[in-house]
Each structure stands twice: as structure tokens, then as C-alpha cells.
């Protein structure tokens, strides 16, 4: 009766709760009327995701998620929302929305099916290259992997960031011609 593993049970419970929270937060993102609230919901969602990452032995990634994603990217989002704003839009159901929801629900169902049915069912296996269980998802592990086997992609990613920076600077330098107001 008390044979179950307490640790595992806690772990499972926490994982489930955090996952559900993440889902609820994402629902909040899409259903809110004001964009600021959507951004806040998104931040919450990202924190939940970071917690999940921690639960799955990816410490470094969790940290990066908080620092980069929830920290820098979302702040950027908030700045833009503050700059441009956006009215509160009330979500009302309409035909095209229903169609979209139907399609996406189908996609969801298919994804579930693919998880359980047939050849797409996930295979549990072991690849013992630098197994996670040994070193965990620490920064050292990431570093070892990143700079040895995935060096090229690392360099390319940095090049990508450079290009993005340059692009931003170019874009922001465009002089803009005011567009006539079409609707007020």
C-alpha cells in the first residue's frame, strides 16, 4: 500500500500541475482582450515552462528560458505594446473563427492519434552519448556538447544574431510616409 515511491509521486504531481498551469496560461494568452494582459499571461506561461524544464533535468535551458525569453524577449514585447498599443478587442465567435478552431482541433486530434497509434508511437530507447543521467543538464554538460559536436550550428546561430541586429538597425532607419487613415 505504501510501496509507491514518494519522490516519484511528488514529481509526477508537480509535473502535472505545472503542465496544466502552462496550458491554462496559454489559453489566457489567446483569449484576453487587452494585449498587455496577453503578454503577462505569456510571461507566466514561460515561467511554467521553465519549471517544467527543471523537472526534466535541463537546468541550463531553464535558466536561459528565464533570462533570455521571459526576461529580454517579453520585455521587448511589452515595450512595443506600450508604444503601439492596441485596443481591447472583444472576442466574439464568428464563422471563420469556428472554422479555424475546427481545423486546429482536428490537428490536435491527429497529434494525439499519432502519439498512440501505429508507427509514429514514440520509442523508448537509449542513446548513450554523454547521457543526461550522468552529468545532468548543467552548464558544463551543455558546454561540452555545444562546443564539440555542435560547433558549426553554434557559430551559425551567432551569425544569425548578428544579421538580425544589422537588420533591425536598417529597418529602424526607414523614413516613413504617413498612411492616410482608412478607418478611425
Amino acid at each position: 500500500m505504501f510501496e509507491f515511491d514518494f519522490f516519484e509521486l511528488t514529481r509526477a504531481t508537480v509535473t502535472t500541475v505545472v503542465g496544466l498551469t502552462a496550458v491554462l496560461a496559454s489559453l489566457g494568452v489567446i483569449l484576453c482582450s487587452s494585449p498587455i494582459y496577453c503578454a503577462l499571461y505569456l510571461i507566466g506561461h514561460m515561467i511554467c515552462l521553465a519549471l517544467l524544464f527543471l523537472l526534466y533535468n535541463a537546468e541550463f535551458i531553464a535558466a536561459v528560458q528565464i533570462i533570455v525569453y521571459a526576461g529580454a524577449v517579453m520585455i521587448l514585447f511589452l515595450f512595443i505594446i506600450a508604444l503601439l498599443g492596441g485596443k481591447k478587442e472583444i472576442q466574439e465567435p464568428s464563422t471563420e473563427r469556428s472554422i479555424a478552431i475546427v481545423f486546429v482541433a482536428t490537428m490536435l486530434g491527429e497529434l494525439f492519434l499519432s502519439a498512440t497509434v501505429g508507427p509514429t508511437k514514440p520509442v523508448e530507447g537509449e542513446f548513450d552519448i554523454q547521457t543526461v543521467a550522468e552529468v545532468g543538464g548543467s552548464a558544463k554538460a551543455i558546454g561540452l556538447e555545444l562546443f564539440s559536436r555542435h560547433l558549426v550550428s553554434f557559430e551559425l546561430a551567432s551569425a544569425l544574431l548578428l544579421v538580425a541586429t544589422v537588420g533591425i538597425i536598417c529597418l529602424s532607419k526607414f523614413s516613413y510616409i504617413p498612411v492616410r487613415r482608412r478607418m478611425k
Partner: protein
Amino acid sequence: MGHQFVLLISATIFCVGAVGFLIRKNPLVMFMSVELMLNSVNFLLIGYSSFQNSMDGQIFALMIMTVAAAEVVVGLAIILTIFRTRHDMDVDHINTLKG
């Protein structure tokens, strides 16, 4: 059972993000739902990296985060450029590519 859980959560968040992209009019919220989708994929990768006992998933998730960051930056700049001079944040009204 961890498999199913990861898959479920990831699929759900992805579809929520897709719905959000299709439903909302505000371009910023649309962009945020794109972020949702990316995050769901990240989660899937991390989960499976732990199941497979390999670091590849985490590295890939790192790359995705990098790309997402760059993409957000550029996308927001574009949105800024387009919508700075208008007063309505409605994506349906930018249809000069019609036809």
C-alpha cells in the same frame, strides 16, 4: 507515462498557439501565439532529450531559443514599421498584396 504527458502538453500548447494565431486580429498577440508554438516545441525537445538520455535535444532547444529571439526582434521591428503610422492594429487591413 511520461511520454504521453509530454506529448499531450506539447500538442495542446501548440494547437492553442495555432488557434490564437488564426483568431486574433492584433498583430502583437498573433506574434505572441507564435512564441507559444515555439515554446511548446522546446518543451517537447527537452522532454524527449531526458527520455532518450541524450544532450541533442537540449542543444537543439537552445538553438531554437536563439532563433526565436532573433525572429522576435526582427518581427517586432517590422510590425513597428508597418503599424507605426496607422492607428488601428488590425492585421486584416494590410492587404495591399491583394489579387
